């Protein structure tokens, strides 16, 4: 499963926050705008409770001299990529501190691409993080035998044929099929075929 990037936006303009959020969610299901803040202090009051993968922030909110690093202002962000969302000129010394820069004149596709590229350097770490988090009970995954039976069902084989192919009894086939239905929640043969196709177990 593809990893979703959890994004926080910090910008004083509600219109721009909403616009960015809409454009990103329309263009790809990969981006989840989970948090939206109007100011740095608004962000700071929640910083301990949230863990975004990416923060998109208006650089004009920081001191242009870059005297205080943005990482220290946006606390708790060791693993977080920080992207500048700029609509005016920003000093080089400040801009260098960001992982990437997007502009209000970029198209949604350009913005999405930049975010993905920036986040790409992080995805291997976060893959691990999400695998750990998504640990669901083992018993809900289909066993190898159940997967084999599922593929045969999706190909349109009868229980008797499946028993012959895999050298098991019809009774065993039925019990595998019951478990497949219980685990997936999918009862019809065409529904199971969709499952097999979506998961790349069979080709069309």
């Amino acid at each position, binding site marked *: *499963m593809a990893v979703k990037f959890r994004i926080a936006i910090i910008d004083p303009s509600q219109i721009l926050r909403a616009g960015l959020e809409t454009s990103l969610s329309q263009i790809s299901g990969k981006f989840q705008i989970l948090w939206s803040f109007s100011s740095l202090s608004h962000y700071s009051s929640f910083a301990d409770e949230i863990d975004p993968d990416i923060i998109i922030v208006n650089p004009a909110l920081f001191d242009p001299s870059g005297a205080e690093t943005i990482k220290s202002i946006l606390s708790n962000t060791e693993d977080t990529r920080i992207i500048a969302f700029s609509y005016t000129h920003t000093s080089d010394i400040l801009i260098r501190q960001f992982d990437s820069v997007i502009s209000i004149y970029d198209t949604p596709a350009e913005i999405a691409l930049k975010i993905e590229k920036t986040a790409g350097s992080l995805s291997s770490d976060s893959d691990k993080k999400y695998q750990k988090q998504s640990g669901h009970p083992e018993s809900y995954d289909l066993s190898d035998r159940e997967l084999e039976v599922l593929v045969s069902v999706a190909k349109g084989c009868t229980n008797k044929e499946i028993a012959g192919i895999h050298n098991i009894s019809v009774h065993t086939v039925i019990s595998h099929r019951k478990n497949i239905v219980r685990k997936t929640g999918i009862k019809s043969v065409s529904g199971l075929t969709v499952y097999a196709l979506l998961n790349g177990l069979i080709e069309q």
Partner: protein
Amino acid sequence: MVYYCKSEDMREFYSGNEKMSTLVNGSYMIIKILSRLGIKPGFGESSVNEVCYANSVSAKIFLAICNIADFNQYKPEMDSFSKSETADLVRYLRLSHNEFMNKDIPSIELCVSKITSSAGANPKHSKILQHFFEEYRDELESHFTYEDKTVFPYVTGILSGKREKGYSIEKFEENHSNIEAKLSDLKNILLKYLPAGYPHDVVYDLLSRLYLLEEEFENHARVEDFLLVPLVAHLENSIKSINHGS
């Protein structure tokens, strides 16, 4: 104030003396039944009987449909329904079919096409989903067409005293296929196995429509199985006994 609780033993079925507004407040799915029967809103403090009478709808049929939808243990009394009330029931079922095929399914179809044509979608996956939905839609179409073209005309015949040979409502009951199974499969596929990249707002919109329609289909099948079938079987028997008597 009367409170309805669907799952417990001490059950009181809906009755004609209750306020219509109380009934709807207790179970909002009744709105669909009101709408199909052409009962107009603005109930005030009127009872179910009064509202039905004012709208020229049989209160008995209305209550039977509501009770079957909401109470598993409800059994209608077959003797108490007149032929014109059975005709009302057939009209209600026809209207339900019409609403499913011309309103609910098209709006679901629109959601499915929005999802499968979205920018982030994998065209291969989209084709699979689209195909599954279209297959299901065709199945539904033939299920409802069979009832509209064969079963209901047979019932209308019985009501006018003519019994078509070689068919009985028992045959319908035996072959009455389950139309919710694939709907529930589609629901689970979207809920559990939809690959990333689809617009989540449309997916959730579609899911809530599927949940509602699944419930509608279940209620619809129960009305056919537990009201229409026994009513028609009762009429078949009464025709038989008249024929024997003469």
